[in-house]
């Protein structure tokens, strides 16, 4: 096994160990010590609004599949979809989900069926869909417009993999005067969302949905783990800078090269 492979396994084990550790020490804790993220507070608020006025939420899961680098964003979006469905179980109209990936469409439909069954929505008409609305970036964006323009949609939640075409979706939401909560893992689309969505999710906030929407202790443990590893990375970066400033990095490189 190469040194890189060994380091990779160590990183995975570090994450698993930290998640298990934080799950163990937080098992009796009732309160959550999470910094407020306005976008998730907005989602909870919009769920309550949908319950009160009989409107429905639109959850757009992007066009990322599960076999590429976009899969994590798509899976995070599915997790948020599940939580939103469970929390809006008393709505007259359950959320409507749309996607640009056939695989995520199937997974979304399965998530919806599983969640609807768990919360006893037996009426098929009331069950939300997990519709494939287009397989190219622009066909997906154009297809999402008809859902956003539905008068009964009170808010749009965009979580998944998007490109610059997401500006179509966010702008349509703005024209309908409906709030748009948006997050993705693609940097150019993040800047577009920051400029055009009413409540953007920045950076890794997309992956924190489970912890903020009450998906369980493993999600809270994941957040704590990310924070610990983030501090480790910060110390490594600062340490590298100091080593570089004092020229100690050259000394270590010489030792490793066997010339010192």
């Amino acid at each position, binding site marked *: *096994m*190469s040194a890189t*492979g060994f380091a*990779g396994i160590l990183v*995975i084990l570090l*994450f*698993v160990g930290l*998640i298990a550790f934080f799950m163990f020490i937080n098992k009796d804790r009732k309160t959550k010590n999470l910094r407020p993220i306005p976008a998730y507070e907005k989602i909870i608020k919009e769920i309550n609004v949908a319950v009160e006025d009989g409107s429905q939420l639109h959850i757009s899961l992007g066009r990322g*599949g*599960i*076999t590429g680098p976009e899969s*994590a964003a798509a*899976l*995070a979006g*599915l*997790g948020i979809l599940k939580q939103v469905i469970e929390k809006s179980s008393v709505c007259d109209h359950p959320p409507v989900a749309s996607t640009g*990936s*056939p*695989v995520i*469409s*199937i*997974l979304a439909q*399965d*998530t919806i069926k*599983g969640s609807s069954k768990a919360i006893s929505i037996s009426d098929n008409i009331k069950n939300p*869909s997990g*519709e*494939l*609305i287009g397989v*190219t970036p*622009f066909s997906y964006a*154009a297809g999402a417009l*008809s859902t956003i323009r539905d008068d009964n949609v009170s808010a749009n939640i965009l979580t998944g993999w998007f490109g*610059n*075409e997401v*500006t*179509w979706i966010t*702008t349509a939401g*703005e024209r309908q005067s409906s709030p748009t909560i948006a997050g993705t*893992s693609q*940097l150019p689309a*993040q800047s*577009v969302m*920051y*400029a*055009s969505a009413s409540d953007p999710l*920045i*950076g*890794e906030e*997309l*992956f924190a949905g*489970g912890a903020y929407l009450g998906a*369980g202790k*493993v*999600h809270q443990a*994941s957040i704590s783990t*990310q924070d610990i*590893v*983030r501090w480790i*990375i910060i110390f490594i970066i600062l340490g590298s800078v100091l080593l570089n400033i004092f020229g100690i990095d050259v000394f270590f490189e010489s030792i490793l090269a066997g010339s010192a």
Partner: protein
Amino acid sequence: MKINLKSPFSTAVAIGVGVIVLAGYFVPAITNIRFILLRTGLVLSAVALLVGIINLLTVHIKKLGADSENSGYSLILVIALLATLVIGIIDMVQTYLSGKPNFQMTSWIFTNIQLPIETSLLAVTSVSLIYAAASILRKRMDLFSIVFFFVILLVLLGSFSIPPATLPFLQVIRNWILRVPALGGARGLLLGIALGTITTGIRILLGTDRPYGE
């Protein structure tokens, strides 16, 4: 046999395949198994595309009957989808009969219909992006939005390349913004996304997150 995606079997398959594919990155001995599983996944993704298209067609056929203002769009979609499908099948049959690739009609559709439409939509996207950038201060008048807006202005002003619009000091500022704060910020965001991606993957591997139902 009815396969229930929510069964322990599907969870075991998901975790097992995930662990093998992950281990394949680190252990050279099982790299071949990783490739076999990934190729199988890609083939299944292609099948899922077919399922998704059938789903799309079904949904829009149902919308045709509904009293909806969008039923006209659904009709166009159904006609276009079926016409493209028929033309594609004809091309495939011709290819099979002639023994050499012959996808002229399909290529014509992509070149003369899809490509111009997508190109024009791309042009509209640039207008939409400008609108989004211009309206940010109307949406959120906070420090970060103001910084965002003026950075856009500085970068745009520093991008002029035709005299007399070129302003050398703005080009220097633009280059510094792109090389230092923008690059640093992008790296910071990517590190955060990488951490989130790893924890999401680990939750799937541990079976605590099951996007295939419960």
